[in-house]
């Protein structure tokens, strides 16, 4: 566990200093929420809100993922990480944990703005939504960390990430939207199904990426 913690600590130290990934994710996510709330003026917000929230989350998340992995590639920091005595799988887990922390913080800051702009209520459902956010974001960064390192090695760099990430995370976005709308409609009966899809997705992709990560960083 120590190497994983070391990578997370390194990422937090860098982010604390330059605040690049966090601010860009936060501002971009807020802008998506604002644009949506203007565009859907006058329509039933309760119906649209879950989809709106997860579109904002996933766009912001893609921005943060690109930042986090490009940072390693740009200055050849990845070489240093690969030379250090830690397994490829641990490197992956460390990057996932770091990405999860930044993305979650940005998302939890976006959440109250989303509630205000859509005239929703601050109630217990928000705690549920925060929980769904945690589970959904875990799945999102589990595959996103791998895909962003793949796309960072192409000629297109970060432009390619959404093309790979969005279809791949379709089950995450779909299930998270379903779970969020169930919570918001105060009828959480069928919620275990989408939540278990989120759980399965994260488990499958963390395991699979842990093992294939060495093929991505191979020189």
């Amino acid at each position, binding site marked *: 566990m120590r190497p994983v913690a070391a990578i997370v600590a390194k990422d937090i130290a860098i982010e604390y200093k330059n605040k690049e990934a966090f601010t860009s994710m936060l501002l971009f996510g807020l802008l998506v929420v604002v644009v949506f709330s203007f565009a859907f003026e006058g329509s039933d917000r309760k119906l649209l809100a879950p989809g709106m929230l997860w579109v904002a989350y996933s766009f912001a998340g893609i921005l943060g993922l690109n930042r986090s992995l490009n940072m390693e590639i740009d200055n050849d920091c990845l070489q240093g990480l690969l030379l250090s005595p830690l397994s490829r799988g641990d490197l992956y887990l460390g990057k996932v944990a770091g990405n999860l922390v930044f993305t979650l913080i940005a998302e939890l800051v976006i959440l109250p703005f989303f509630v205000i702009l859509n005239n929703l209520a601050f109630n217990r459902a928000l705690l549920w939504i925060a929980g769904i956010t945690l589970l959904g974001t875990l799945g999102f960064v589990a595959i996103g960390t791998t895909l962003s390192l793949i796309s960072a090695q192409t000629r297109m760099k970060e432009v390619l990430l959404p093309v790979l990430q969005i279809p791949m995370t379709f089950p995450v976005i779909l299930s998270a939207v379903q779970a969020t709308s169930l919570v918001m409609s105060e009828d959480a009966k069928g919620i275990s199904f989408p939540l278990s899809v989120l759980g399965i997705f994260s488990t499958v992709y963390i395991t699979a990426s842990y093992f*294939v990560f060495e093929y991505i960083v191979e020189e």
Partner: protein
Amino acid sequence: MKSRILGVASIVGIAVALYFALVYAPTEQTMGTLQRVFYFHLPQAILSYLAAFLVGFGSLMYLATRDLKWDRFAYCNAELGVLFTTTTLVTGMIWGRLAWNVWWAGDARTNLELILGLLYVGYLMLRAYLPEREKRARLSTVFGFLAVLDVPINYGAIYWWETQHPKPVLGPRGGGADPDIKLAIYVSLLAFAFVYAWLLTKRLQVAQLEDEVGSLESTMEAS
């Protein structure tokens, strides 16, 4: 030689399948002639999923053996995947417009097919932006492997949606279809399987030539 046999089998097969679909099979009672599009829709949908499994298989074999043969196998199947998801969606939309009066019903299976198509396109796009041959094979193989894992999860995620897509007619749970209709479906499936195998062998030959040209070019540049 192999591809020539498959080519003849494809052409004859499609001709026979057309006869079975348009003449032999009885007109379905509720949907009438429109139902006949189904003889092309279902086999193509099945083959579009087969392509996903073959991409996954090729990817795993490449990771295990590092033989470029398997990389070619994976991406030629991905190209056929794009072809067959497209024809499945087009025939499905023709059906949907006439039967339900909408092009896109937003139905679970339709969305699944579209996502599958987008994954194939993503895979091919990734390859297009990786100029180095070995790196292209390695990275796209990882993506292909991860994308194939996505297919069953996707299926599970949207399975619980209420689907207005017609229930399956083949397989153990699919009862109720006329035996003549079933026979026509099997004939059509066989015909399209020949087409798939034919296109795949042709495409694999071309891909191998492409690789040979590529390696010749790099040796010329080096000297």
